[in-house]
């Protein structure tokens, strides 16, 4: 489904600040996998997502999504394969536009846009229907601008927008990190529900070890641009925080990761 082959990314190449952010990583993510990626600050988690989504391109290596080579494909051209949710809840929606306008834009992910009305009447009922899932009463606020909503509400909206045009790969970039614990849990539950119901192939970057252990069927730990460990299936299910600390504690200098 998603294949990274020998990916390498160096920032500030040729200067004293040169930093190898990703050091020859090869990964194969199968269809339907829910992979959690964990690692301390600067381990290369977000860089890996940025390379996958085309924010910038790798210095070496190739990237394939469902068989097509996308290594040098511009970000907007990859959109039909990818859905992405950012850490900052403000990033996923256009704040000056209404809920239904945001939905309508997500509806057309990766498609050519024309001069038809932006919000198709026939779709409005559908938007209302999926908004009911949130139980926040947003189904009656289709014409409110998104700027009126809280961070958690906006992040939930972004998740629903992903389901409008199911991407082949869903990238979650610490998408609950800037929410309060209660809201974070709600958003995480919704994520789990959406991923399961639609059998989405998902990569979730997180800073939170229990979260990385609890969700998904595969867990990858990055350290200084390399894969530290990569476990899946039964072994992943049986994993506990204590176990990770016991096995990899020596390398885990980042205390925050374990809290």
């Amino acid at each position, binding site marked *: 489904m998603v294949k990274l082959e020998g990916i390498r990314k160096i920032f500030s190449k040729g200067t004293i600040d040169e930093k190898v952010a990703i050091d020859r990583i090869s990964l194969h993510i199968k269809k339907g996998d829910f992979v959690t990626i964990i690692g301390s600050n600067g381990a290369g988690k977000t860089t890996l997502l940025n390379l996958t989504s085309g924010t910038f391109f790798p210095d070496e290596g190739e990237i394939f999504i469902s068989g097509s080579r996308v290594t040098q494909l511009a970000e907007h051209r990859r959109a039909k394969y990818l859905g992405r949710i950012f850490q900052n809840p403000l990033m996923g929606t*256009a704040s*000056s536009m209404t809920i239904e306008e945001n939905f309508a*834009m997500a509806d*057309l992910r990766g498609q050519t*846009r*024309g*001069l038809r009305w932006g919000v198709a009447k026939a779709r409005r009922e559908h938007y209302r229907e999926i908004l009911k899932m949130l139980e926040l009463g947003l189904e009656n606020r289709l014409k409110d601008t998104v700027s009126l909503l809280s961070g958690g509400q906006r992040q939930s909206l972004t998740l629903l927008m992903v389901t409008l045009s199911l991407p082949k790969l869903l990238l979650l970039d610490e998408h609950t990190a800037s929410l309060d614990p209660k809201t974070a849990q709600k958003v995480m539950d919704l994520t789990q529900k959406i991923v399961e119901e639609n059998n989405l192939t998902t990569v979730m970057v997180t800073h939170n070890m229990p979260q990385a252990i609890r969700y998904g069927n595969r867990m990858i730990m990055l350290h200084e641009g390399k894969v530290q460990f990569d476990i899946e299936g039964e072994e992943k299910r049986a994993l506990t925080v204590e176990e990770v600390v016991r096995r990899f504690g020596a390398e885990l200098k980042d205390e925050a990761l374990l809290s």
Partner: protein
Amino acid sequence: MAYGLVASGIVISFRILAFPDLTVDGSFPLGAAVVARLIMEGIPPIYGVFAAIICGFLAGCCTGLLNTKLKINSLLAGILMMTILYSVNLRIMGRSNIQLLTVNTLLTPLENLDVNRFIPIIGFFFVVALCMKVLTDMFFHTQIGFAMRATGDNEQMIRTLGVNTDNMTVLGLGISNAFVALSGALVAQDQGFSDVGMGMGMIVAGLASIIIGEVLLGAKTVRRMTLAAFVGSIVYKFIISVGLRLGLAPTDLKMATGVMVILALGIPALKKGKEGKLHLRGV
């Protein structure tokens, strides 16, 4: 009233695309120059107006391309185009101004009506400006219009949804400057001449109009924004003419307009905590 189109154009670049586009000072006389030259060549004025619109569109696209493809800072890209257009306008006209008083223009049939000259002309401009407002509103509620608004609002988000934001910027600036050039073409015919210096201070005047409009009406939706530009430019012209009548020297007009914009933008910043109401994206 014809100046209202300038404000509408500026709404698209400054407010919707969040792109501080300074091309306006050049594309306004560009529209005037094109229409004046073509009328002198004996081409029907209506074609001249369309040619002016197209030229304005292309000028805006050039600014957009300078910014997106050559990665030139948005302000600088506008200044470059404005400067280049100065020469272009001189080339188009062949001299620094063209008189249109003695020839037939688009407005001549209206002027020949058996009434006060101003009423039918103001009516005509009102209709044109209103039509453009409605068309703009409609455009910004289409799929492409949404993509353009999102480009100004949250570029990252709309790019991940598969929109080429560079193209949206180029197209938006094109449309914006097409409005401005149309305005230039109409103003030249109204006042009876086209002059290479007539674009000076156009942006500031347009901004002043928008600010006035948004203070009066707010800017919550696109429809409200375009309406604010429309109403704002009428009120602006009214304020200016009252000012002139009260003894403001015409020479100080641009300074007064500039000070007006500075006050409008500066007061919220000085009154901390009350910020935001007048926060113009792109300014």
